């Protein structure tokens, strides 16, 4: 069987959802990317959306004690749910007011997403892939596969759920100083001596030999897939590598800090800065960004408050930095950004003995884009933070016992995100079980 036939057979069998970038295809499709940029911000550990975008200002029964307790201390202390001019509700907690006042116009909040688990790994996998079983790619990987052929940094990842299903590879971008030396490996350290290691015409011969070698390897169909796939990724990563030079134009003079005002570790801003640089250079389709610190089983208000404040810092910085770069470079980052923020699941609507909050399957997602959405709140939960479904017109059904309503599941969120990312074609090999509920009209 010829290699091409083999690949066709694999695709037909659903074994290779997209034979992406094999052979010379990646070379041929090398181009600057100007389309939408898809960022996922992962609130790691399980965020408390009752103190964020699904605010609960009341009481409920703590099933451990049978006592009626405040869901949140900020409510117990007299705080009340706030509403933005655009009609978004939020909790008067952490730095939420600044977040929602600044960015509320760009948001759509999806509440009442049921992760159907309270185990971290299962929650992350379910929320960010749409199913519990392994193997489905993250939407950022799908977007990079769909739109990032030939791009050297199509998919940036700083952690979180970054399964690629072998469709593409992710890149961790850190330390801009070392990055400068990687943009053009044929240049000696320009700040020392600005020269090159090889004459251009010699390098051309070496490149030809490299490509011929990869072709020979790829033609050996008997080789184990691990080696040929590694060769494929080497080829595709070389193909767009010349474009890395575009980073030079956008590299910042001043790096974003990696600690917050109190000296706590806070790398989100640096992650955002480098992702925007790469997106501005036309090299990136998608990026996974991570805000750690939400698994607050003890001293919840302090620790969750810190994590939420840092998250707010990051989100505000993201849009401000994008706007600044647009102004400086004439890019259109703000107009191209498509952002989703989500977490493993939520946290209990009561405090434990250690003033912490434990895992709770219900959570939320926040989508953001310039210009916002026609609908800015979808789904919801009861006042005691229990499930509510939505009707077929996506309105909230206030009756928790109405079986005609549909609970929003991660599969619905992923279906929406794939659609939003224009990645349904490549995602079709990873079908989602969504039943009758379809959120795609929201974007």
């Amino acid at each position, binding site marked *: 069987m010829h290699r091409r036939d083999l690949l066709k057979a694999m695709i037909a069998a659903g074994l290779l959802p997209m034979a992406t970038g094999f052979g010379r295809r990646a070379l041929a499709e090398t181009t600057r990317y100007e389309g939408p940029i898809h960022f996922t911000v992962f609130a790691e550990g399980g965020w408390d959306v009752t103190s964020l975008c699904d605010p609960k200002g009341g009481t409920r029964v703590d099933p451990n004690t049978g006592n009626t307790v405040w869901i949140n201390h900020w409510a117990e202390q007299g705080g009340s749910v706030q509403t933005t001019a655009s009609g978004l509700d939020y909790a008067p907690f952490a730095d939420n007011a600044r977040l929602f006042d600044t960015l509320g116009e760009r948001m759509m909040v999806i509440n009442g997403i049921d992760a159907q688990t309270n185990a971290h790994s299962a929650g992350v996998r379910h929320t960010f892939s749409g199913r519990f079983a392994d193997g489905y790619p993250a939407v950022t990987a799908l977007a990079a596969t769909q739109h990032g052929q030939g791009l050297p940094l199509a998919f940036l990842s700083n952690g979180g759920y970054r399964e690629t299903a072998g469709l593409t590879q992710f890149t961790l971008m850190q330390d801009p100083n070392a990055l400068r030396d990687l943009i053009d490996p044929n240049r000696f350290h320009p700040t020392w001596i600005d020269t090159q290691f090889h004459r251009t015409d010699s390098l051309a011969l070496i490149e030809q030999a490299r490509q011929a070698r990869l072709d020979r390897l790829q033609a050996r169909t*008997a080789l184990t*897939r*691990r080696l040929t796939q590694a060769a494929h990724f080497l080829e595709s990563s070389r193909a767009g590598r010349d474009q890395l030079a575009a980073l030079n134009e956008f590299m910042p003079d001043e790096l974003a800090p990696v600690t917050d005002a109190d000296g706590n570790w806070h790398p989100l801003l640096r992650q955002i800065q480098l992702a925007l640089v790469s997106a501005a250079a036309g090299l990136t389709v998608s990026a996974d960004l991570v805000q750690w610190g939400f698994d607050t089983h003890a001293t919840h208000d302090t620790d969750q408050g810190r994590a939420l404040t840092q998250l707010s810092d990051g989100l505000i910085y993201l849009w401000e930095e994008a706007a600044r770069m647009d102004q400086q470079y004439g890019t259109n980052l703000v107009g191209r950004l498509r952002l989703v923020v989500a977490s493993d699941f939520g946290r209990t609507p009561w405090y434990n003995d250690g003033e912490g909050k434990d895992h709770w399957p219900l959570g939320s997602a926040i989508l953001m884009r310039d210009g916002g959405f026609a609908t800015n709140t979808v789904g919801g939960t009861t006042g005691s933070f229990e499930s509510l479904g939505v009707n077929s017109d996506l309105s909230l059904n206030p009756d928790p016992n109405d079986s005609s309503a549909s609970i929003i599941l991660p599969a619905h969120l992923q279906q929406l995100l794939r659609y939003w990312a224009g990645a349904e074609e490549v995602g079709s090999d990873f079908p989602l079980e969504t039943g009758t509920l379809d959120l795609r009209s929201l974007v």
Partner: protein
Amino acid sequence: MRFFLILAIAVATLAGCSQGFEPVRDKPDPLASAKVNCTQTDSAFFEKSVWPVLTQCTACHQTGGSAPAQGARLVLDPVSSTNSLAAVRDYVALAGDRLVHKPTEYQMNHGGGGFFDADSDDALVLAEAVLRFGANAPQCSGDETVESRESGYDDVNLINRARTLRKASLLLAGELPGLAAADAVRADDTALRSALRELMAGPVFEAWLKTSANDHLLTRKYLTGMTEAQEALGGTYYEGLYDRTSVAFEASDQARLACESSGDPSSAECVEANALQQTAGVIFRETQRAIAEEPLELIRHVVTTDRPYSDVLTADYRMMNPFTYEVLDGETWVAPYDAMDPDDWRPGQVRRYRVDWGVSLAARTGRNTLPSAGILSSPVFQLRFPSTETNRNRARARWTYNFFLGVDIERLAVRAMDPEELQSVTNPGAPGSSCFGCHSIMDPVAGAFQNWGNNGHYLDRRGYDALPQTYVDSEDYVEGDRWYRGQLAPGFGTEALPTLSPYGPANGHDDGLTWLAERIVADPRFAEGTVKFWFQGVFGRDPLLQPLATGDADYDDRRVAWQAEQALMSDWAQSFRHSDYDLKVLLVEMMMSPLFRAETFSTLDAGRQAALNTLGVGRLLTPEQLDRKFTATTGYSWKLDWQNDPQLLENYYLFYGGIDSDGITERPAELNSLMTSVSMRLANEMACSIVLNEFWPGVSPTLFSGVTITTDPGTEAGEAAVRDTLRSLIWRLWGVTDDAEIDAAWSLYKALYDQRMGWDEPQNYLEWTALWNDAAPAEEEYCGIRDLNPDDSVAIAVDWSNVDWSTPQTARESLGSYYNPEQTLRPWVGVLIYLLTDIQFLTE
């Protein structure tokens, strides 16, 4: 007529099957001159050579034939060479050389008589079959593959024994095996097993052990992350932890004041201040390292001293070096030590521990030392997997199951939970809910950690227990309890932890963890867990996950692949158990397997190939491994003069897939553009310097021993020399000797050479830059003039002061290999770059 013909054939056949001859005694044993033809695979050899010979035997040697009826064990399938190959394999495994001795009647009788002479070609063919299919088949000297005989992997071919040794040696020893070592393993698997085991000693193996273990335990977070070990563990409990560091910094500060008073930066006071400051920095840094690496050092200690691997959980000591020994113990060691030696690791005990400010461990508990249960009681391990008042050590229990029993509790029920239960169950450890299935496994083990607080401090509630004060203040608490009433009682499986009172302290054991450790290592799953723990380190990936989505198109293929891998892992675990938990035995078995050695498929089934897409060679090397491979294969290190560590472990570590054991804990499995750039940078920065050094007069070359600076590739002899050198280089760097690749590398060398010779003004030096030579930008080519081996007797330095230009040789007395009007060296630079950036250099 037809009847008579059939009758005649039948009579002739029967006669053939029963005729007897005297055994041949004066002919040589055909096995004596047999050898394996390495240009053929087993299948091809059988099809082309053996089957035509054996076809004549099928008249009797088939099911229902006269030979089996008389007890013959060779039963062929007349219509299937594939089935017959399997039958011959089985027969050779059972009867060995009889395959050839019987039909030749060499020193034995054959019921069917002698079919061919012992010195005939047919006999040689069967003799080769005996060699090939024997248990210890010799293997080829090149890079040919051998067929896998592992059940479940009979459609893959493996790298041969010599290449297996090479791959393992690079991984575990950071060196290439010598020719003699490679030759020694070609004969049989026993020799290979022995050679693999011999690799398991020395600093590289120890580094591999610790790095592989840290990929799971992640305790180096406290070495490289944002939180330092002393800060995380210090405070109330480890009373002496800061002592040595504090004293050192105070001394440094005092000396600094004296220095400033002197007003002279070169004064003796300032010299001393600088020295003390440096010492304080070393003490601080090495104390961090000693704490962060303690569980990793325990593993190293157990494995390298050939103790049962179960000691990693049952050790009644902790590993310390002088930086921790002096502040945590101070009494155990008998032999003298250098207080500043970070590599002197020995067992010790934590004696300097207090349970409250001003209250020593002994004063409150009567104990002089903290209890020890290997890794389980390691302070930094518990710190890395902390608990909370509601988590109640469940995370520690989860990771204990995962690391040491191979059970991922979170994967026991990969499904949607009942939403009502998720929101209403307050005690998942109570029977009656679907949570109970997992929690009944996890919660008792969590209880065995009862004496260890959320941050890993022993009896952190003032030495009474490790319960939160809020619980103690509740009505559930009973005086003397060590664990939560209402939780499942501490235990393991169905066995309860013996306690002095219900939910009270352990009875008959030092601690719940010492009791737990004994149960874990006695559990059959401990062996399986150990296999899984080392899987990533050996194979560069995690074990295949059991496919669960039956509707997936590749479900069946993945299930078959998973089952085969499970069977292998089960076999290894059995060997491990039978060896009294000798980790080296386990590692050898893993490296003998197709998971380590598979290189090609003999099946074209695309689904099957895809299901095995992480099998065998092609593992992307980590930055640590690539660094070691580069040094092992070239003899040089990619390191800047002022750096402590090589570039791959410093500037480019995270770019190339390193982890910080904190936020970045997973290594990428695929190359990306920045990683590719790192590999190119490595090649570009090093290749020309290496060539300059290797061809420098007086240097004994490592890579280019077959050629000289004057080897002319335009001559027949020159081409032969270049090709020989390429063969050696490709074996060193890629592990193959493929002629097509040698041809390609030769073509590149020649093309680069011809290109240079074709330039109007070919440059005579390895380097030509705008800065020094006024070169045009496109013509620049930089070469680092560095003495890469400053400790040898040859100094590498270009001396322009007094060059004798009479001949190239005289010029090279001053300029060395930097002067190369023959244009032979820059092509080697290009070839080296080509080889160093290839996927078979970046993977193994």
